[in-house]
């Protein structure tokens, strides 16, 4: 092994072995620098390790840092360092003791671990709290590498004893370590008692149930430590308190009262951690005055979070959004603080917009509309569109304000900015669906903007409006005719709408529209390559030729008005997420299992969770992932339910025995199209989500396949499916 006698590594080796301290120290720094920029420095291992024994703490730290990075690549040589490590763990200087034990436990080399046990048990009982708190976390590190070692030496029991330690920081770290181990032991082998590493003795594979027990004495200790430890310690203690189940109402009250002062902490994570604990324990509280004071005291700190750094603001806003779904009243009078600043980052603006809509009521709607109009004149296209959409949502939410909203929308259409006009058209269609026959006066203006529209959704919306009010629009056949001319080039949603609208026109004005309906049916059945469009055309054709009355009943049936959903997640999921305030799950509004762990929440995952007797509510929550998402995305299928049942039954010849089967069948069918559909109209999807986080549709697959056979007898299903899709198009 004759290394070349030149090059940087050779030079470094010379320096590392130099007789001058300064030179050696300098060389170590250079090694670390090289490592940082990604150069491999593993060849210098023995030379660096020689410098481990030194009085200079800084140099020692650097050598340790080197060891952490390269111990794994040189398992044979690590043994050279063991002696110094063990000696350092008994150093009179507590900083050195802590440093040594901290480093030793992350080296990831089997050989070192064997030597670690006795220094670690010594350090766990060290007289110095700094060493104890460091050692506490080491137990979690060791558990990560070799769980059986922890069991063998009873480290976990020692940790549990440390919860009673006099030093708050030690308590916090002991709790943190236990929670970490608890988490780790659950992911190692939840279902299968033989853990992946064959050597693991049975006790380690099932320590989870008794790992982190919080009994009443522990609770008392934690509540004391909460007020004394550092901000990060407080977060750890708070998340432990969140896992505790209060035995009775008094205890829940006690916890809430003790946690409440933490609202005043300067650290946003502490504040949100306190909110989490309160949201969990508030369920048990019945005392009116306490409930009141809790919700009242929760509001100001939440508002204060809105003036923190943008990223923290965003986390807070996402969480506030969740809290408002559960308790819409907490921030009732605070809408103004959510007004967007001109220089807010886009992700913050979008969230603020969403919350403003949630807080809108008849009293503040004037101000809100003024703001929204202001936003609609900004330049960020995405934000402007959302602002326009928000105006529509306000109209749907507050009936008294609908007229004002329509007025504002008409003003915006006059600006003739293409994307504003298009968005406004889409939004007005929703308003028509909520308040049919109220604002027909605006239709001519909309129609005059026909030329401006180039996006499928906007076009489809306008066509829908024309079809719906065909009897009142004199030149409806002319307008629809223009769309029919370009029928082949249009996208499928527009084709579907054109088809339906012309059929509506025909049913309303049979004498004048005979020709046009013939042409559209021809075009849709002959020249169209989407099976959806073709099938719908065939159905219409058959309906029209065999039973025009039935056709009328289907195509012109009265739909119930839409409404703005109070929640964007299913109630059970909401409960679960409220228990995880400030976590990633609460930011994404998705249960953690959907984005961590083995990936998405598949059917077997749900099944497995369901079997686990651990927690019934959890089981329910996960089942409703499917149901909830369905309800959220396919909102409109339910809307159809309230249409006169008998009529539909006669049409369907009893083939649809269950409405949901039809809807599920639809959802499993053209998956890609559905994804498209949902990605744009879904109000709830956090804009910030990367594509990977759109798990709902794939996870629907297995269940729907079970319910639904092959697509036999498609006729009635597609009728409802098609109608629903026509509804879906514009809804959120």
């Amino acid at each position, binding site marked *: 092994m004759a290394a070349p006698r030149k090059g940087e590594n050779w030079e470094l080796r010379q320096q590392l072995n130099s007789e001058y301290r300064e030179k050696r120290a300098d060389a170590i720094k250079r090694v670390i620098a090289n490592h940082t920029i990604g150069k491999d420095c593993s060849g210098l291992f023995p030379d660096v390790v020689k410098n481990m024994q030194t009085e200079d703490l800084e140099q020692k730290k650097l050598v340790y840092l080197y060891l952490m990075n390269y111990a794994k690549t040189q398992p044979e040589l690590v043994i050279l360092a063991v002696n110094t490590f063990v000696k350092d763990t008994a150093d009179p200087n507590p900083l050195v003791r802590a440093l040594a034990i901290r480093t030793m436990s992350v080296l990831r080399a089997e050989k070192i671990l064997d030597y670690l046990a006795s220094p670690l048990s010594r350090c766990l009982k060290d007289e110095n709290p700094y060493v104890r708190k460091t050692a506490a976390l080491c137990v979690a590190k060791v558990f990560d590498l070799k769980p059986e070692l922890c069991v063998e030496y009873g480290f976990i029991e020692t940790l549990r004893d440390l919860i009673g330690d006099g030093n708050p920081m030690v308590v916090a770290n002991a709790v943190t370590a236990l929670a970490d181990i608890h988490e780790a032991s659950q992911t190692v082998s939840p279902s299968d008692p033989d853990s992946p590493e064959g050597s693991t003795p049975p006790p380690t594979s099932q320590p989870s149930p008794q790992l982190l027990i919080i009994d009443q004495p522990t609770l008392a200790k934690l509540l004391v430590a909460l007020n004394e430890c*550092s*901000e990060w310690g407080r977060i750890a203690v708070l998340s432990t308190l969140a896992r505790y189940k209060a035995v009775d109402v008094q205890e829940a009250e006690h916890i809430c009262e003790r946690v409440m002062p933490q609202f005043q902490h300067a650290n946003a994570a502490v504040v949100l951690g306190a909110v989490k604990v309160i949201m969990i324990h508030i369920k048990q509280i019945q005392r009116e005055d306490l409930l009141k004071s809790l919700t009242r*005291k929760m509001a100001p700190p939440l508002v204060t979070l809105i003036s923190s750094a943008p990223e923290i603001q965003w986390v807070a806003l996402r969480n506030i959004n969740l809290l408002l779904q559960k308790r819409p009243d907490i921030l009732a009078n605070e809408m103004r603080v959510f007004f967007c600043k001109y220089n807010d980052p886009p992700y913050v603006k979008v969230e603020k917009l969403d919350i403003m809509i949630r807080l809108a009521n008849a009293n503040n709607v004037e101000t809100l509309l003024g703001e929204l109009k202001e936003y609609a004149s900004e330049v960020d296209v995405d934000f402007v569109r959302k602002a326009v959409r928000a105006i529509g949502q306000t109209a749907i939410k507050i009936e008294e304000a609908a007229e004002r909203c329509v007025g504002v929308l008409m003003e915006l259409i006059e600006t003739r900015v293409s994307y504003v006009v298009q968005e406004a058209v889409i939004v007005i269609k929703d308003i028509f669906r909520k308040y049919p026959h109220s604002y027909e006066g605006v239709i001519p203006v909309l129609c005059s903007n026909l030329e401006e529209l180039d996006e499928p959704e906007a076009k489809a919306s306008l066509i829908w409006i024309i079809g719906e009010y065909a009897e009142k629009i004199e030149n409806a056949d002319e307008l629809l005719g223009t769309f029919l001319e370009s029928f082949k080039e249009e996208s499928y949603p527009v084709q579907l709408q054109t088809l339906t609208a012309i059929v509506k026109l025909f049913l309303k004005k049979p004498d004048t529209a005979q020709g046009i309906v013939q042409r559209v049916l021809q075009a849709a059945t002959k020249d169209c390559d989407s099976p959806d469009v073709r099938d719908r055309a065939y159905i219409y054709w058959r309906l029209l030729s065999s039973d025009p009355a039935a056709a009328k009943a289907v195509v012109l049936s009265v739909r119930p008005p839409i409404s703005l959903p109070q929640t964007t997640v299913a109630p059970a999921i909401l409960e679960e997420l409220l228990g995880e305030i400030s976590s990633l799950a609460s930011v994404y509004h998705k249960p953690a299992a959907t984005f961590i762990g083995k990936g998405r929440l598949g059917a077997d995952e749900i099944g497995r969770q369901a079997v686990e007797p651990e927690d019934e509510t959890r089981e329910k929550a996960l089942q409703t992932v499917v149901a909830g998402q369905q309800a959220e995305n396919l909102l409109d299928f339910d809307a159809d339910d309230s249409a006169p049942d008998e009529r539909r039954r006669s049409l369907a010849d009893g083939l649809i025995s269950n409405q949901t089967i039809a809807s599920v069948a639809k959802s499993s069918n053209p998956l890609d199209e559905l994804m498209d559909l949902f990605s744009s109209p879904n109000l709830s999807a956090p804009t910030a989500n990367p594509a990977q986080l759109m798990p709902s549709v794939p996870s629907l697959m297995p269940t729907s396949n079970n319910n639904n056979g092959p697509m036999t007898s498609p006729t009635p299903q597609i009728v409802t499916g098609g109608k629903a899709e026509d509804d879906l198009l514009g809804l959120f």
Partner: protein
Amino acid sequence: MISAFFIFNQKGEVLTSRLFRTDVKRSISDVFRIQVISNADVRSPIITLGSTSFFHVRVGNVYLVAVTKCNASAALVFEFLYRFMSISKSYFGKLDEESVKNNFVLIYELLDEILDFGYPQNSETDTLKMYITTESIKSELAVREDSSKITIQATGATSWRRSDVKYRKNEAFVDVIETVNLMMSKEGTVLRADVDGQIMMRAYLSGTPECKFGLNDKLVLQKRGDSAPKSESAVELDDCQFHQCVRLGRFDSDRSISFIPPDGEFELMRYRSTTNINLPFRLQTHVVEPTKSKVEYTIHLRAAYDPKLSANNVVLRIPTPLNTTMVNTKVGIGKAKYVPAENIIIWKIPRIQGAQEAILTADADLAQTTHRQAWSRPPIEVDFSVVMFTASGLLVRFLKVFEKSGYQSVKWVRYLSKANGTYQIRFL
């Protein structure tokens, strides 16, 4: 928890990388580079890919990135990143590519101390400076503490203070700094006016002093309705947050602010007030477009505070359309000039006395364009600092210091109201 911590430069090169847990590899940094740094349209500070989440904060020309594999507390991770930022600033002045490169050893040392196994540990700069030292900081502290004392302090109930501080002259300085947020509509109605206050304290006090602090209100935290008639001088605070040295339990029970201060400078409390805000400046704008190629501005600024006080460094930023070619400005006091790069007129007034008024008139010539560019009409921003004035009306009533030895201490209080991009008036 936090599995890895990286610092990237703008090109996506790794400046610092530290892995804290075994569940990620160094190569994960490539993923971040591809997904975030080289992606022009990033619309979220958190990116989750597969089961790995990247939290990032951009400061100047570097990215601070924390990586986690679990359902971590997002607030905690961002708080940590910001804390890292402030620690870095206090150690080496500023956080940018150059300073990260120059201080990489120190950064590794700090990271080792403030994060253990991905859990934040001690992030108090004062304590850290006792045992993580650089040449400049060493000389500042002069003496190196006995390490067992340091460790006790780093974990003790008052982790923020050494026990053996000594000063010949015991002094405490209190700075009340208020940032005024204003959003005014073009019609002149106040859409939003509130104050983010900060009470900074510099304590040079010997021993372990017990301080009590009082403000000119009963801290009407929960609006108690009419039961307590508010005296006129009382200020209503919507919310306050304290440094960790303040006993939150005491505050919750009897609204008293008591604490043992850290040595040196620290932020004692932050507060928010939304009622009865005294706006230091009033603005009347008259902006018209007589022709397609011209915009005329008349801006009338009035200082609405006491004539005895004065404001410094008043800067107005007045946006102009994007196709502006030339601007003629005329001002009574200060200087105004057009900055084409930013499409604004900057009007600087070094000093303006209370109750004084100033007027700017300007004509902007616009280029003839066939296609009119969308102009988002940003609001006018006013920056200022007014000394000895609080927009909320807050006053410090007392600061009492008790110490075993019973020494006398001198206290100083200063007030400052300022705005920095937060005082916005819409026009047009």
